[in-house]
């Protein structure tokens, strides 16, 4: 159900961005899903459709596009770059759930595969982002 909260946030942010850019009729919303947050794409798509207020004139013709972004990490100590598979984030419920809600909590569970440092950077694929909003005025 967290997907509903994220979907609501996407729609709120898209409407806000459209208003700021002078867009009255949104034609396209592009949403990014970062691999680290492990959002279920199908649930998210369903949630986006459910929370989209079609009665809102700005959204009447809006099409949604979802792009996924692979997670990548870089160790600040040894500069080793690694991906989610090598990060070996446990799929034990607790760890996966923590990172699903708060991606930065990966710092509690992931260590650099080369030097075991906890001081790494999430370079890409952190969470849900609103990539772009297109439309006409």
């Amino acid at each position, binding site marked *: 159900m967290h997907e509903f909260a994220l979907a609501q946030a996407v729609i709120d942010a898209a409407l806000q961005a459209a208003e700021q850019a002078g867009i009255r009729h949104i034609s396209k919303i592009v949403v990014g899903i970062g691999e680290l947050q492990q959002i279920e794409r199908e649930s998210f798509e369903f949630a986006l459709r459910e929370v989209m207020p079609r009665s809102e004139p700005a959204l009447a013709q809006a099409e949604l596009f979802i792009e996924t972004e692979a997670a990548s990490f870089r160790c600040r100590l040894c500069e080793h770059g690694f991906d989610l598979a090598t990060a070996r984030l446990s799929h034990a419920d607790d760890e996966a759930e923590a990172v699903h809600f708060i991606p930065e*909590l990966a710092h509690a569970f992931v260590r650099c595969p080369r030097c075991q440092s906890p001081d790494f950077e999430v370079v890409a694929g952190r969470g849900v982002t609103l*990539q772009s*909003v297109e*439309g006409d005025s």
Partner: protein
Amino acid sequence: MISHITNRLSDLRLAGIERRLRQVRRIVAVTGGKGGIGKSSIASVLALVMAERGWRTGLLDLDVTAPTDHVILGLDGCRPTEEFGLQPPEVHGIQFMSVSQFTGEHPAPLRGADVTNVIIELLAVTCWRELDMLVIDMPPGLGDASLDMARLLPRAEYLVVAGASRIVLETVRRTLGLLAELRVPIAGILENMAQEQSGAVEHAARQFGVPFLGAVPFDLHLEDATGDVVRLSRTAVAQALRRVREDLFFKQR
């Protein structure tokens, strides 16, 4: 015809934060400056005292790298449930949220930008139910959490915990200076671990032009009561917090 494309978009989580807190009447951030001044104990026992008064109370531990409120209140093992976000568990009449509910005993080393992300995420995902007061336990210092709170929750009032030491008061002075610059409301100064009637904190409050809320005595029994809410509610700390002036702090707004 497409006439506009916007791809420099603000953080989508920010739009939802006030929606999550719309049922919260007052937000009180317990802050101080120096570590070790007793912010977490004051925040936790304050939440207990509020709940005891029949106020619908929430407690958010925002000391994300060193959370301890769950230890003070004996809330190990309680977890949020998932429904349109995270529903904080309600224990001892307090809706409670902390990253400790996810990280357990694992250390979570976080740099500044990561701390900001955790704070935004916690605020954007937690569905606080109806509350008269949400108490926020702030981390020490004037870093990311202070700046983020002022940016994200400008209506939060600050309760500044101080001690009658020149070292502490020096930090309190800086803290109050920053809060004034950020133009956020200050609920007042509370003296903690008071051992004698020096009046130094009350005097400082007058100098700084903020309300003095009272003094909480140094309590040898607080350590033994840690983790046990029944014993905590009998401590001199709880008794002192019950005496905080109604007209200055406990008035329903």
